[in-house]
């Protein structure tokens, strides 16, 4: 018996699809964006516990993935549960370390597991975007500071710049490899060639001004601050210097480097060098959208357009507070050190060639099958044969593709979109802090002790809430009674933590007391 040609190709396809789906579990059908939109809406409304509950209900499996760890870490941090946040980030960090080891061993592997060539990027193990890997240790350092342990924060910050250097070495030649492979396979790998792709959202001056998608001026500035607080100017200077290189033209950053010597030489006169870290908004997530990908098939190299989904990123208006008002009359200017919004877009832009190449390879076999079936249907129709079975096969093929072709929307969604820093030499004791949220003002009180302090605040859409203040050597002390944060109706929620770096004060730092 002669096998039906159409049936064979259908069979091939079904094997392929079922193989891939079986291998991936339900990952291919999960919409990360939908899951996280709900979580973030709850967090923005001030219901962090509710947000955590939703996150947990979406991740019931015992083996939590990197994404869960990162989202959980950030949500717990928002709640002021620095200990719990650290547990989640430590788990996330272990996964990033495993990735680091594997990539050092085999640079080619970082392109993703073979599985995704066959079905979808979504079934790949989530390895994290580069800026996320850097943020994990940066936030771990901030958690440590919040817990009063600045010495261990130093370890985390050191790991952050080591990780950054490792990623840099890895990415340098990887981009070249993808371009080369795409060229060999004749794939269209420029997203600008996707009809209707919102090019502006990932190809604009802010995005292109970034040196890359992972170098993080916040972590470098924080490194400068921590090393300075620990009395290590030789390590503090490169921290500030790198921050300036990454975010040039901001006076506040330049003053931090320029004044380093003077600050270290200064006598302790009862002031507190206070660093404000203000996080605003929510990083944009990837959203799956359908486009027609041209694929060459047949002996004449005809282009067949196959519908495929690619990640896009909706535009979001940025907001950064221009200053921090202290005690109602002192305006401390801020510096915009971290633009995670642009970094996410830059990462997507850098990822697009690889995503398109994988889609091209994945869809080529389907394009060929589709082309051959169409040819056969046309042939049989010419001969006046029944084409019903064949047409059903074609339909199944196209439908199957539509189900499995959903772009990978994964990414750490609870991160802020922007981070600004401000720094002021304030007298020790209680101060009133007032930050413009764009829609109103958020005010809260802080109690500063010791020569260095860290005050962090997250402005998140919704209603205001605060967390206890903390300090190194003397962790998380509740805000003094009567202090509360106030925001105008409709203003952003504020999550605040205050850390006072106190341990050199025990007998004060050497260079301050010893003439």
């Amino acid at each position, binding site marked *: 018996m002669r*096998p039906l*040609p159409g049936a*064979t*190709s259908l069979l*091939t396809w079904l*094997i*392929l699809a079922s*193989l891939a789906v079986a291998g991936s579990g339900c990952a291919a059908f999960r919409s990360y964006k939908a899951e996280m939109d709900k979580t973030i809406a709850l967090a923005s409304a001030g219901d962090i516990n509710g947000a955590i509950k939703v996150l947990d209900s979406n991740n019931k499996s015992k083996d939590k993935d990197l994404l869960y760890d990162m989202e959980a870490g950030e949500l717990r941090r928002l709640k002021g549960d620095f200990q719990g946040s650290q547990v989640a980030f430590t788990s996330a960090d272990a996964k990033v370390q495993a990735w680091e*080891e594997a990539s*050092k*061993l*085999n640079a080619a*592997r970082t392109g993703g*597991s*073979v*599985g995704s*060539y*066959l079905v979808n990027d979504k079934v790949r193990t989530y390895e994290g975007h580069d800026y996320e890997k850097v943020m994990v240790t940066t936030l771990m350092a901030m958690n440590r500071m919040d817990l009063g342990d600045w010495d261990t924060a130093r370890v985390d910050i*050191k790991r952050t*710049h080591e990780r950054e*250097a490792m990623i840099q*070495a890895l990415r*340098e*030649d990887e981009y070249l490899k993808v371009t080369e492979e795409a060229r060999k396979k004749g794939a269209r790998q420029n997203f600008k060639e996707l009809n209707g792709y919102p090019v502006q959202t990932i190809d604009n001056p802010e995005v292109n001004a970034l040196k890359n998608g992972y170098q993080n001026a916040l972590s470098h500035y924080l*490194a400068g601050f921590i090393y300075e607080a620990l*009395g*290590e*100017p*030789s*390590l503090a*200077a*490169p*921290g500030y*210097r*790198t921050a300036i*290189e990454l975010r040039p033209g901001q006076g506040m950053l330049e003053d931090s480097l320029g004044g380093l010597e003077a600050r270290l030489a200064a006598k302790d006169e009862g002031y507190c060098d206070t660093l404000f870290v203000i996080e605003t908004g929510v990083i944009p997530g990837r959203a799956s959208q359908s486009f027609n990908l041209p694929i060459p098939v047949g002996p004449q190299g005809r282009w067949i357009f196959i519908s495929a989904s690619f990640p896009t990123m909706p535009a979001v208006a940025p907001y950064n507070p221009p200053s921090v008002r202290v005690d109602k009359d002192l305006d401390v200017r801020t510096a915009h050190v971290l633009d995670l919004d642009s970094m996410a877009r830059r990462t997507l832009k850098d990822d697009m060639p690889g995503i398109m190449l994988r889609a091209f390879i994945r869809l080529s*076999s389907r394009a*060929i*099958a589709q082309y*051959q079936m169409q040819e056969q249907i046309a042939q049989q129709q010419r001969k006046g044969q029944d084409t019903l079975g064949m047409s059903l096969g074609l339909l199944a093929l196209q439908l199957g593709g539509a189900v499995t072709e959903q772009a990978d929307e994964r990414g750490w969604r609870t991160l802020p979109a922007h981070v600004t820093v401000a720094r002021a030499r304030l007298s020790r004791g209680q101060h009133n802090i007032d930050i413009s949220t764009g829609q109103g003002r958020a005010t809260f009180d802080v109690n500063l002790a010791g020569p260095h302090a860290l005050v962090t605040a997250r402005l998140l859409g919704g209603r205001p809430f605060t967390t206890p203040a903390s300090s190194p050597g003397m962790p998380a002390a509740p805000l003094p009674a009567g202090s509360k944060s106030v925001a105008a109706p409709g203003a952003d929620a504020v999550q605040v933590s205050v850390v006072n770096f106190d341990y*050199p004060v025990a*007998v004060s*730092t*050497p*260079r301050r*007391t*010893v003439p």
Partner: protein
Amino acid sequence: MTLPTRLRVPSAVIAAGLALTLAACGGPKTKYGDAGSVETVTNQFGSTDLQMLAEQMSQSMLSEAPVISSGNLPIVTVQEVKNKTSEYIDTRAITNRMRATLQKSRKVRFATDQAEMQKQIDEIQRQQSEYYDQNKSTEVGKMVGAGFRVTGEITSIVKEDKKIKDVYYQLFLSMTNIQTGIEEWSDTKEIRKTTEK
């Protein structure tokens, strides 16, 4: 029956599966190495640079600084060596290594430096407390000050194009007589590293 050509796709699946299984076999291996070997993993400031700079600088001090080579056992304090590069170079690791080498040469003695001062004061104060036998405790006001101070800076020049990354480091150190302010010794040591991509 001939195999339809379209069935080639599943064989690709098998091949891919095989590749995955094979890739899983080769895990990372850890071995102990020679701490003194020449390290060229990346062109960032590395262990060989630290060892070379520290060793060459201490050799220069031993042979070129008259106050040391005369065998007078000068007392020296090490101040901060400024890091003017964009790299996180712990200059204290360089000066610590130099200190250890010089100490062992028995040509130099080191006084407590700024970074160690607080610990020194803490310990003296602790011994002054009522729990200690005051006859055997360290007295206040007996510390010996240094006659010379060592300070300096490290700078770098980094140039990079598509094919080559070139890094140049220069360490400058000087030793000054604290009493007179006269510079007794200074030297520069440099390192150039080039990486072809």
